[in-house]
């Protein structure tokens, strides 16, 4: 993996935020269902659609909204 420290840190922060926003909406059960679907779906996008009825763009927007709502005052 050839990430700079800074790039890696941003990516890690985004990945945590995205997972937090999923859990805040549907609980850890949504994560469990998503992983089950990822195991068998042809792509992550298909699994997101099947398990959470969302797509990557919407998840990103949901994450931004979640961060603003929860953490930005």
């Amino acid at each position, binding site marked *: 993996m050839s990430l700079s420290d800074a790039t890696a840190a941003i990516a890690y922060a*985004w990945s945590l935020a995205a997972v937090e926003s999923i859990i805040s909406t549907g609980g850890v059960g949504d994560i469990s269902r998503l992983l*089950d679907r990822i195991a*068998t779906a042809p792509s992550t996008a298909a699994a997101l659609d099947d398990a959470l009825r969302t797509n*990557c763009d919407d998840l990103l927007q949901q994450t*931004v909204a979640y961060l603003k709502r929860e953490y930005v005052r």
Partner: protein
Amino acid sequence: MRLATSATAAFLLAVSSCAAADTIVLKNGRSIEASNVTEDAAHVTYQTSAGELSIPRSIVARIDRGDFGPFPASHGAADALVSAPQVQPVPGYEDVERLAVHDKAVDSAYLARLDSDALAGTAVSIARVAAAHHAAAQFLLGQGDTDAAIAHYRRALIFAPDNIGLLLNLAVLDIRENQFTAALGPLEHARRVAPDSADTAKLMGWAYYSTNKIDQAIDEWKRAERLRPDPEVQRAVEKAERDKAEEESYREGETAHFALKYYGGAAPGLARGVLRALEEDFRNLEAQLDYTPPEPISVILYTEQAFADITRAPGWVGALNDGRLRIPVQGLNDVTPELARVLMHELTHSFVGQKSRGHAPVWLQEGIAQWMEGRRSNAAAAALGAWPRRCLSWKVPG
């Protein structure tokens, strides 16, 4: 994988460009990291540093899109030291394969007819049923349905129990499902049928390495090298020998779900504490993710220097899960809160990797692992929240 503290501290200062990378996963288990991946009915085309390349669509199992950003699309926990060999169980039956899978579906009625014909036991009927089930399995594998693919190989083996291609393909799927002990069944049978198969030795090495039987893994990979030199197997032998040399002076501990190795000079209380913490984490993850890993998980506690020497990981990597949990613990006498978080983080990778059959994109793996260790976004959220336009411009492919 867990970031070292220095990288985390750099977060608020960081502004970097982030281009999505994709991974093209081939049916033989190899993967290609690339950008700008496009596909049509016949080809998958992608960009590399060497320019634009194209491969046949038929050899591609799936394309994992990079999604949220600059993580590589695969993660150590899911990576294999060696790739799966591509073995055609019965070459020359392409007509049967076309009839078994057509119009993007398996023709179950056709397969049932071949099953029935094969009961007669003629060589041709058995070859046809093996070819048909192999085609169905490979098609289903491309669709992500590993369970159904395994079922087809098992069905075919009823009629052709000594077919090396069927046995090896079944073993590969068992290994990918982390069913390493189960994989040894077809592999041992394949060894009896064809003792000089390099592919069998390669896969046995993989299964042994994954169950922490390093000596047996090295023996098998060396045997594979003698039978058919292969740079990939040679690299696997070198890595396994590095592990072995380091671990020879290590002590061992074991619980229901873990096999632990640790430097002999380390505090005994630390090893016991690590196992206790891991067992508790195991129960928590089992309940939260509704999943139980089928095989004991291998854990190694290193001094900092040994960790760097063995893993050859970049300096910012604080711990690693490449199928074995590799944790640096130098100077610790007990499980500190920081070590407890590291253990939970790395164990989560094992659960997520296995539950998702190695298909979870890295952003999801890392997000879940951080969440499970107790990390929350508050420290970083203000900076992230200020960048919605920038972050939304990370285009997520299809």
